[in-house]
């Protein structure tokens, strides 16, 4: 599980390339600095290829990148501090905004953490729908990654193709939750609303179409000479270095580790669906591209299986019947005094969550997304901390940048699939 499938293959590189003594800063060797030809360039934070507001301080020797330091924090908005001030019920709204490309997954990890503290059972239908939406969200996130990363390397048409399918996914989210992004559709206990019946045929159309769309993308890139030359053998990261640097998700799987939390620690309905985990051992930008492409195919398969299952669940409960935590059905508010009281108490005061601390991790499109929450037994979380996979991925930039040219830097940073909202929180 932890090692590459083919042990005989030569390692990506010998030894370690993690810079010393600071693992995240590539230092210019003194003898090179003494030549007087090293130029320090400030790259970002406002640059179209930095996926947001990443600043890189780059030392150049000709076109070679010989020194690099990443500076982050330009998008710090204090989500974690804000969530401490809100009741558990209201704090869910913050989670999706942390990573604006994989909002459903961020929402899910916070809701799962609260449910773990509450020891709450979630109805099967809600689990399947969560799985379905999280996989659609994974495709959405990968599409934005593919479109923008290819755009940065000059493949402008990819951007239009990817955003065409992205639009379809956002339409599906709008159909379900009323919002295109940051749906806040997951609640502690289940879903916020029942699944609209029109969702299934529309989602089917998408699932039937998506494999053809991926064929289109692959036809344009996978064997494209320019694409191969810009991505193969670049941004190398060995298995040992990837683990030491805490890399997860597609970056780890492109470095030859068969590791996917959906398989390792199955949550939601992942234990009951059939899917493969794509693993490539080359550890370069191209391998990361291949992982993303194959994952989109697998996610499409998972969505199809979820739809099969959900269609048999009409009329089943979509949220837990727990009046101390879950809002009562709307229509009961007109007829039941008790329901009105529950509604009022949950909305104004919030529900209490038992004292304790938990760490819940899920496989987000970018890797291990963790949520550490502490509760003092009151209606507000005492501490919320997100383990953002992008934050960790950026730590690998200095290691990946060995022997890179300035133009390759764009491809390498892009391949790590970072979302600055999540990095800076």
């Amino acid at each position, binding site marked *: 599980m932890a090692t590459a499938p083919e042990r005989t293959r030569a390692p990506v590189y010998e030894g370690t390339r*993690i810079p010393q003594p600071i693992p995240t800063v590539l230092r210019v060797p003194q003898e090179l600095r003494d030549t007087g030809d090293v130029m320090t360039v400030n790259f970002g934070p406002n640059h179209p290829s930095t996926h947001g507001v990443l600043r890189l301080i780059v030392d150049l020797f000709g076109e070679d990148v010989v020194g690099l330091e990443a500076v*982050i*924090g330009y998008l710090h908005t204090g989500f974690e501090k804000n969530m401490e001030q809100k009741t558990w019920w209201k704090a869910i709204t913050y989670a999706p905004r942390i990573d604006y490309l994989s909002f459903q997954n961020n929402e899910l990890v916070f809701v799962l953490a609260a449910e773990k503290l509450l020891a709450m059972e979630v109805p099967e239908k809600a689990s399947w729908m969560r799985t379905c939406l999280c996989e659609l969200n994974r495709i959405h996130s990968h599409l934005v990654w593919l479109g923008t990363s290819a755009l940065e390397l000059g493949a402008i048409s990819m951007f239009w193709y990817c955003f065409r399918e992205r639009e379809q996914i956002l339409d599906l989210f709008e159909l379900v939750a009323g919002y295109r992004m940051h749906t806040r559709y997951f609640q502690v206990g289940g879903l916020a609303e029942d699944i609209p019946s029109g969702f299934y045929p529309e989602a089917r159309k998408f699932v039937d179409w998506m494999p053809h769309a991926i064929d289109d993308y692959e036809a344009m890139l996978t064997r494209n000479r320019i694409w191969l030359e810009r991505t193969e053998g670049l941004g190398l990261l060995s298995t040992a270095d990837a*683990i030491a*640097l805490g890399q997860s998700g597609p970056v780890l799987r492109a470095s030859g580790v068969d590791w996917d939390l959906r398989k390792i*620690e199955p949550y939601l309905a992942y234990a009951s669906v059939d899917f493969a985990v794509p693993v490539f051992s080359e550890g370069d930008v191209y391998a990361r591209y291949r992982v993303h492409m194959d994952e989109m195919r697998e996610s499409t398969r998972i969505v199809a299986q979820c739809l099969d299952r959900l269609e048999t669940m009409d009329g089943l409960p979509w949220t837990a019947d727990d009046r101390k935590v879950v809002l009562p059905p709307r229509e009961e508010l007109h007829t039941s005094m008790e329901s009105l009281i529950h509604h009022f108490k949950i909305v104004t005061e919030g529900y209490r969550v038992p004292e304790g*601390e938990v760490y819940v991790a899920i496989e987000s499109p970018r890797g291990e997304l963790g949520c550490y929450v502490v509760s003092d037994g009151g209606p507000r979380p005492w501490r919320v901390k997100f*383990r953002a996979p992008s934050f960790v991925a950026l*730590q690998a930039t200095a290691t990946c940048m060995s022997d890179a040219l300035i133009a390759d830097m764009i491809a390498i940073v892009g391949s790590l699939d970072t979302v600055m909202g999540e990095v800076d929180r």
Partner: protein
Amino acid sequence: MTYEGVPGLVETVEQHGETTLVVDPARVVEAGMHLRDVEGFNFLSDVAAADYRGWASHGVAGYIGTASGRDLNAPMTQGYQALPKAKPKRFSVSYHLLSVSERPRRVRMQVWVDDGEAVPTVVPVWPTADWHEREAFDMMGIEFSGHPNLKRILMDDDWEGHPLRKDYPIGGEPVRFSEAE
């Protein structure tokens, strides 16, 4: 699964299906080396610091939502009766460890420190701790002694205060280029 061989182990807490190993802050590097090399926790997921200032100084209120607390007539289900269990010191630093191997498992290594006390850095054990520790320093003001590059990461270099501390006010940050400056 027992972790009795971990150097500096103070106590083992089992809660919500998770194992927490509370260790002596002075021996955190030793404990980390042991957990990495002997127990196989080669992957550091996260370093999460928490500020417990004001914890247990007042009871917590709210509408109970636990499986065990459904009876409204039972004590502690309503009002201000519940008081959380006191914590040993002001700050906790939790290292969430994961074993990326044939036998995947998680454990939380935790140290407790007061304001001004330093924790030895674990960057030599897990290089990924670099930014995590910088974040804990920036947000909570916890020093990590021996860290190769301990400076602010999310806030400005000249920022005053540590925003995630409980005594840091919300809305209290200075507004740049405003009349009031």
